[in-house]
C-alpha cells in the first residue's frame, strides 16, 4: 500500500514523515518519532491510556490514523512541562495527591483531566468522575485521581487548597 506524506506538530516540533494509511496515531508517535510517553492499553478505545490532545482537544490516539493528524497539532504527556521545575498544574497535582500508582494510565488520565478543566474549570466531584469515564485506571480506585483534578482546578484558579486535598504534613 502507498505511503502518504504527513506533517504533524508534536509537542512543539514539526515532523515530516511518510506513513502507511493504517498506521495509528499512537503507533506513529511511539515508533516513528519516539514519543513513547503515550501508550496503548486496548483495542476498542475503551481504556483511554493513549489519550493526547489534538488541536487542544482530547482524543484517543489509538482511534485516529496518523494520516488524519496531518496538518494538526498534537500534545502528549511529554509536551506539558518545560524542564524539571515547570510542571503543568495537573502533573503537579497528580504527584501531590498520589493520583497515580503504576503510571500506565497516567499520561491519558492527565491529558483527559486537562481537557476536562479546559471545558469546566470548576468541576464538581461528579463532573470529574463523568469527565474521566473514558479513562480506566486499575491501581488507584480513582479516589486520588478525583482529588488530583480538584487540586489542579484550585491551583489553576489561584484558590487555596482545602485541608482534605493536601494530604497532611510530609
Amino acid at each position, binding site marked *: 500500500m502507498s505511503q502518504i506524506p504527513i506533517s504533524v506538530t508534536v509537542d512543539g516540533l514539526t515532523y515530516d514523515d511518510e506513513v502507511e494509511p493504517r498506521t495509528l496515531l499512537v*503507533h506513529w508517535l511511539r515508533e516513528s518519532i519516539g514519543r513513547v510517553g503515550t501508550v496503548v492499553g486496548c483495542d476498542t478505545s475503551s481504556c483511554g491510556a493513549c489519550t493526547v490532545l489534538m488541536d487542544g482537544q482530547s482524543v484517543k490516539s489509538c482511534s485516529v*490514523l496518523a494520516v488524519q493528524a496531518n496538518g494538526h497539532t498534537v500534545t502528549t504527556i511529554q509536551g506539558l512541562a518545560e524542564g524539571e521545575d515547570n510542571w503543568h498544574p495537573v502533573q503537579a497535582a497528580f504527584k501531590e495527591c498520589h493520583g497515580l500508582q503504576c503510571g500506565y494510565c497516567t499520561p491519558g488520565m492527565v491529558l483527559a483531566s486537562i481537557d476536562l478543566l479546559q471545558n469546566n474549570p470548576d468541576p464538581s466531584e461528579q463532573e470529574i468522575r463523568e469527565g474521566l*469515564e473514558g479513562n480506566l485506571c486499575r491501581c488507584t480506585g480513582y479516589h486520588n485521581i478525583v482529588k488530583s483534578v480538584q487540586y489542579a482546578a484550585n491551583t489553576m484558579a489561584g484558590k487555596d487548597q482545602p485541608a482534605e486535598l493536601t494530604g497532611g504534613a510530609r
Partner: protein
Amino acid sequence: MIPIAFDYVRPTTIPEAVAALVASGEDGKILAGGQSLMPVLRLRMAAPSVVIDCSEIADLQGVRDDGNSIVIGAGTTHHDVMNSPIVKEHSPLLAMATATVADPAIRHRGTLGGALAHADPAGDLPAVALALDGVLSVTGPNGSRDIAAADFFTDYFTTSMAEDEILVSVTLPKLGAGWGYHYEKFQRTAQGWAIVGVAAAVHRSNGNITAARIGLTNMAPSPVRASSVETALSGADATVKAVGDAAASAADGTRATSDLHAAADYREHLARVITKRAVLTAGGI
C-alpha cells in the same frame, strides 16, 4: 491490534467523496469520525480496500437554523453538537442524548452523521432522530435525496442508503413551545452502550399531556417508536399514574434481543420502567 492495510483518500468536497466511494466499488468505507470504525478495523472485523476520510469536508460541518427546523452537518462532532447553542435551544433532546454517547475524547472525534449511518442498535442517536421525525439528506452519484428517519434505519447496522451514497445532513424540525425532553439511558457502566435507552419529547398543556414522541434504543435491530405509548399519552392526565399506565405498553411491537448484558425479557421490562421515567422527567411531572 493493527488494521489490515488499506488505501486512504481524504476528499475535501462532497462530490469528491461520492466519486471516491463510487470508485472504490463495494470495498470502500467512509470514515466520519472513526470512533466506531477504528475498533472494527483494529480487531480486523472489516477490511476495506480504501478508507474515505470525510472528516475534513467543510460542507459536512456545522449547525444552522433553517427557520422551522435545524440542519446539522453529518460531519459535526458530538462535542460540537451538544455544545451548539442552536441545538441546545431547538433540539435539547439531541444535545442531552449526545452528551451520553461514549466519553469526552470519543465525542471530540465521533460525529452525528457517523453514528446515524453506522446504525448500531445500541447507539443513542438513531432513536432521537426517529422520535423527532428527523430527515436525513444523502448524496450519491445520481444526486441528493431526503430520507425520513422512519425509513432510514432498516436493520442491524443497516440503512436505506445505497452503497454509493453518503449522509450529508440531518434536519430536525423545531417542536416549538410547550415541549419537554429527556433521554434516559440505562447502562451497566458509564461509558458502556445503552442496554435500553428512551428518547422522550412530551408536550403539555393545561395539566394534560397533549402529545408525546418516544424513540427506543436497543429494543429492536433498529430504533423503534413506542407508538402505543404515544397514543395512550395523547390527551392523558399529566400524572404519575397515567404515565405509568401508558408506559406499560412500551415494549409492544419491539423485537428486543438477548446478549451478554441483558436478555430480551429484561430489556422489555426495562423499556417499560425507563419509558415511564423518561416521560415523567420530560413532562416535568
